């Protein structure tokens, strides 16, 4: 044995340790040594408006979609780290959707162009701005029929682009991938107005949506989401507005309805006209020039066509008059079929005869939404293919991706001798360009916006341009190129142009323009709308209208609905990892595409969840997994846009399929819009199956009263167990020494916290401090998931990718549960789908706190369930014990995957977690501390109610979340939580959560559910 030990060459163990100890000690005794240290880099000249460590806020406008919501941006040391809604904005009123939050990722995206690029064979070569602009000027100087294809932009840039295009003798083509052209055309035909009407959802008592997905797309998803929540949530007087959805498929908007009438695709006009006929009755003047149209429609005819009962339509018509004020919305982008304009006209007639114009449908301040005609871009395809146009420039659009391949845009574009893109990041169109002049992101650029006529908002840069990218505002580029072409003097900047545009429109009698400009930059908008509500006359249509059910391309036995994605729009947001990992609000699937199919239809064809099928239309074919969805008609399947990118970037490419591949290139008449609900398909299983990357556990509550509801009729009869789900039985707690004792009635109330027996040490004076709590009103929550992305942005929550989600390792701190209680796709009937935002409940009697071996999680004296990241050793017992399953674990150092400069977005007030650490909702403790610090500095005053606003509450367009100190009797949280609808999830477990939920209120009776014995 001894020989074996001494066989080891060199140092023996004891000697080794002795030497290590001595040399270690020696190192600390010497005065100078080399060490790894950090640098501290000061400013060279400190800016006046930045204090290191203190946030500076700027007002601007979101450039994400055509809604143009107001935005407040938090910056730290000159870096934008969080975007939020501007509460002063008259349209969005402080809300912001998930896509809006994700625009911050596009600012710092590593897939942005590094600078101007010139084509060099099959590659791009970076050039200087001088070279790039000179090249463009040279080509434009001699080009025949130059063309500029542009998406939506603010009024000043719009004017500049018009002038530029005129100056070069070219043609401008407007193109919006998601366009409300049928609605605009309908308004023009029916009332002679330009622009789309404004809808006052808030003041309607009965809302009817004919396939209009106003929470997801349309002129203002945030404003309409807010309007729906205000209108349909029960008010103090105990009444609530009703929302009925008519359409072949329940979108997220549809899932919020009280009743679903599953009409066949394309039959909206028939139903609307039948209703209008019933309402107009014998009055020949009611529908003016459309009275003869109404004669041809009645509920019996409409019922046959639409596939629902005559009674359902009669009832609808009667309610539409009796439950005034009412509002009907015509089909939006998710339902653009060959008769979309006619369908919108029909709904306008319905609104007119019901007396809604001037009340809930307003034409006074037309909405400046996206209304371009697809037919225009079809014309440009021929112009390009024939070689007519020598230079084509593209700004704010990605037509190579978002136009059906059948149109041949890519092939025609390839024919153009000189192609220019202003895109700031790679996409399928700029991939083909010869010259790229990357535009700035809207957070680094000047601009303006006018969401409604009479409302002006300014978009200002909130930081210096991100230094990794040599970007330049397109407005500046155009002015510079125009200057080169004309050779006169110096080029103006776009900022000068913008200011001049507003100065010329400004009435100096109202005061000094410079002061007004500064005020505009500070508040973000100016509202100059008048008060009058115009009452309009129906105009005689100048063209022949057909309200017939439109045709769908055959062969195929299932009609295909192609609709914009609530997460990606038409695909412009697909490269945001936050949005890729945001569970789709309807399907809860992430990172890939799915085909929605009715479970009964699937059963008949032997298709199961996750089966990969080949979907074939007369225009194309693709393979996609099936997701079974009860909220879709049995003869319809649906596919969302936004997948199947091939050249957009690392997070978008090869994720899912491009639904547009199945569509023809067809524009609807007379609006010219792209038709998306246009073809039927065959669906054939391939024999393969895949696990869907979903975060959904179950859509069935299994009688666990997770999201109970109360019928409207039963409000005010609280405690009557017969009528109400979730009564309150006496709880009993098992003692460690055996036996049960009853849990005192006041446990869980703010007065009972901290728990008896723990009122010493840190908790001795906790009765005097705040006790933080939250209330979530499920009658308001629409399931839009804006809170999920807001939380991810605020708290540096990592994304993990499809593979990890498949393993159940998704990291979102908020989860929107979706439970089907009543969904019937075969007949008109009550709809009951419940959304429940589930976050850490900050339980007073938390099961997670007792099992942590290192005290990394415990209850703070202020009532938070704290998670101390540096103490966590990764036992994961806490997540195991949590009955709500809201704790998420960093299995890897996910932040290693975050490329520069995406890490610039991280919130410096929140620790970036390493691997091996558990995390969960913290009630935005960093915001609580920020407010408490401010209060201490301001003379040690008390923190006011509503001063601490967690990211989720701030973002919620539906105003469903309330946070505050529940120990304050005057706080909103206390008042809201004392509602008769208040309950807590899984209350019977005696976890005593600090999150109170308010039950959803239904119009129908809710089945009484017994308690678990």
């Amino acid at each position, binding site marked *: 044995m001894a020989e074996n030990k001494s066989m080891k060459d060199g140092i023996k163990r004891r000697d080794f340790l002795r030497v290590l100890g001595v040399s270690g000690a020696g190192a*600390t005794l010497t005065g*100078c*040594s*080399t*060490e*790894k*240290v*950090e*640098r*501290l*880099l*000061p*400013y*060279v*000249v*400190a800016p006046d408006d930045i*204090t*290191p*460590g*203190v946030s500076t806020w700027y007002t601007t406008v979101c450039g994400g979609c055509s809604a143009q919501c107001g935005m407040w941006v938090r910056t730290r040391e000159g870096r934008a780290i969080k975007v939020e809604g501007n509460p002063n904005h008259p349209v969005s009123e402080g809300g912001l959707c998930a896509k809006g939050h994700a625009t911050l990722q596009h600012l710092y995206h590593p897939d942005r162009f590094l600078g101007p690029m010139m084509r060099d064979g099959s590659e791009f070569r970076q050039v200087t701005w001088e070279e790039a602009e000179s090249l463009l000027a040279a080509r434009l100087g001699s080009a025949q029929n130059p063309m500029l294809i542009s998406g939506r932009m603010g009024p000043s840039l719009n004017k500049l682009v018009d002038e530029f295009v005129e100056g070069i003798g070219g043609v401008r083509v407007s193109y919006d991938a998601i366009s409300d052209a049928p609605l605009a055309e309908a308004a023009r035909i029916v009332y002679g107005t330009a622009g789309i009407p404004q809808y006052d959802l808030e003041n309607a008592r009965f809302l009817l949506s004919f396939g209009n997905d106003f929470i997801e797309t349309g002129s203002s998803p945030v404003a309409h989401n807010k309007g729906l929540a205000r209108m349909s949530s029960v008010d103090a007087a105990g009444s609530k507005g009703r929302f009925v959805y008519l359409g072949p498929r329940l979108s997220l908007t549809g899932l919020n309805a009280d009743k679903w009438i599953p009409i066949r695709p394309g039959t909206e006009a028939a139903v609307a006209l039948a209703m209008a006929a019933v309402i107009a009755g014998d009055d020949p003047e009611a529908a003016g020039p459309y009275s003869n149209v109404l004669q041809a429609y009645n509920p019996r005819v409409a019922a046959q066509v639409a596939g629902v009962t005559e009674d359902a339509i009669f009832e609808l018509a009667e309610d539409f008059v009796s439950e005034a004020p009412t509002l009907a919305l015509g089909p939006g982008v998710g339902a653009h079929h060959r008769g979309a304009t006619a369908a919108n006209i029909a709904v306008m007639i319905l609104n007119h005869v019901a007396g809604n114009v001037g009340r809930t449908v307003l034409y006074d301040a037309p909405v400046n939404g996206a209304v371009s005609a697809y037919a225009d871009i079809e014309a440009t395809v021929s112009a390009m293919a024939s070689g007519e146009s020598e230079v084509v420039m593209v700004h704010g659009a990605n037509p190579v991706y978002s136009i059906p391949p059948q149109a041949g845009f890519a092939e025609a574009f390839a024919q153009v001798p000189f192609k220019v893109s202003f895109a700031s990041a790679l996409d399928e169109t700029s991939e083909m360009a010869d010259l790229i002049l990357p535009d700035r992101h809207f957070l680094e650029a000047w601009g303006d916006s006018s969401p409604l006529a009479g409302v002006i908002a300014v978009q200002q840069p909130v930081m210096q341009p991100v230094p990794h990218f040599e970007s330049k505002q397109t407005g500046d580029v155009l002015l510079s190129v125009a200057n080169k072409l004309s050779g006169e003097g110096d080029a103006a900047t776009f900022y000068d142009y913008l200011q001049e545009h507003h100065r010329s429109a400004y009435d100096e009698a109202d005061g000094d323009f410079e002061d007004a400009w500064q005020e505009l930059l500070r508040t973000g908008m100016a509202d100059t709308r008048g008060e009058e509500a115009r009452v309009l006359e129906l105009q005689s249509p100048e063209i022949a209208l057909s309200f017939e059910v439109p045709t769908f391309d055959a062969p195929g036995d299932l009609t295909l609905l192609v609709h914009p994605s609530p997460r990606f729009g038409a695909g412009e947001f697909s490269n945001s990892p936050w949005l890729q990992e945001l569970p789709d609000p309807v399907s809860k699937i992430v990172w890939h595409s799915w085909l929605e199919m009715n479970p009964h239809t699937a059963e008949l064809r032997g298709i199961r969840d996750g089966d990969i099928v080949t979907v074939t239309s007369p225009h194309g074919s693709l393979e996609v997994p099936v997701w079974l969805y009860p909220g879709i008609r049995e003869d319809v399947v649906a596919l969302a846009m936004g997948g199947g990118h091939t050249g957009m970037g690392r997070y978008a490419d090869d994720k899912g399929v491009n639904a547009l591949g199945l569509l023809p290139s067809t524009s609807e008449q007379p609006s010219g819009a792209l038709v998306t609900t246009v073809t039927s398909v065959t669906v054939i299983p391939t024999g393969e199956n895949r696990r869907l990357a979903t975060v959904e556990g179950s859509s069935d509550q299994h009688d666990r009263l997770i999201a109970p509801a109360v019928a409207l009729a039963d409000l005010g009869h609280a405690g009557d167990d017969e009528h109400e789900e979730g009564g309150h039985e006496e709880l009993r707690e098992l003692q460690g020494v055996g036996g049960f004792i009853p849990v005192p009635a006041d446990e869980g109330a703010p007065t009972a916290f901290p728990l008896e027996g723990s009122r010493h040490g*840190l908790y*001795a*004076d906790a009765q005097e401090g705040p006790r933080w709590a939250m209330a979530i009103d499920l009658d308001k929550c629409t399931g839009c998931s804006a809170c999920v992305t807001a939380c991810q942005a605020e708290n540096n929550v990592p994304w993990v990718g499809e593979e990890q989600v498949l393993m159940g390792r998704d990291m979102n701190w908020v989860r929107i549960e979706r439970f089907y209680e009543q969904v019937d796709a075969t007949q008109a009937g009550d709809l009951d789908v419940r959304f429940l935002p589930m976050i850490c409940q900050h339980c007073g009697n938390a099961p997670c706190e007792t099992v942590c071996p290192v005290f990394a999680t*415990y209850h*703070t*004296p*202020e009532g*938070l369930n*704290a998670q*101390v*990241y*540096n*103490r966590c050793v990764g036992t994961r017992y806490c997540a195991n014990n949590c009955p709500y399953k809201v704790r998420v674990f960093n299995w890897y*150092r996910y*932040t*290693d995957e975050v490329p520069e400069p995406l890490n610039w977005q991280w919130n410096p*007030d*929140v*620790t*970036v977690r*390493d*691997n091996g650490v558990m995390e969960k909702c*913290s009630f935005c*403790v*960093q915001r609580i*501390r920020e407010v408490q*610090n401010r209060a*201490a*500095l301001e003379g040690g005053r008390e923190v006011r109610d509503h001063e601490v606003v967690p990211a989720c509450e701030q973002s919620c367009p539906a105003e469903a979340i309330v946070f505050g100190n529940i120990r304050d009797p005057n706080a909103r949280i206390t008042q809201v939580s004392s509602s008769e609808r208040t309950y807590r999830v899984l209350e019977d477990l005696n976890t005593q959560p600090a999150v109170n939920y308010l039950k959803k209120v239904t119009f129908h009776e809710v089945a009484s559910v017994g308690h678990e014995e």
Partner: protein
Amino acid sequence: MRKHWLIGGLASLLTLAGLAFIQEGPQEPPGSEDMVEVEYPSGQPIAFPHDQHAGSQPGQNNMDCQYCHYSAERSVDAGIPSVSSCWGCHQAIPGSNNPEEVAKIQQHIQSGDPIPWVRIYKVADHVHFPHMRHLNAGLECQQCHGEVQELQVLDSRDPAWGGDNMGWCVECHRQPDDTGKAQASTDCTVCHY
């Protein structure tokens, strides 16, 4: 002999089992790629003497800490002076002790590059230390940072600085105030979030 095989076999089995859990080598803490190796503590790019500027001895300038560390009473960060802050005086003061060090300030002003100071006082990344709360509570800078105004070269190994040790912070927080309660909260989440 058999025993050796058994022990060897068991050991290698356990080693293999252990190897299965190793991912990559020992992981560097995140952000450590930004650290540099310098001669510590004298590796400062400019030999700035705190005693000459802030000291109260005859011939020293007795400057207030917050003249340079300007955000301490408003912000979580105390702030370090901008290069223009130094230049404000030194454009006229060449410095009698070390004029070649003072000249470096001009070089930085002209080149526009910030002076890359070596960080001396640091608490861990998972600690959110708010300077303004402590100043608001009446603390002197010297209570934590030591008698900086007497030092020519700052060294975080000075026994007066205990900032790399949480117990040092907690001890002060635990001290009773006039009413007998702890003078500051020892709740974990006042610093760790």
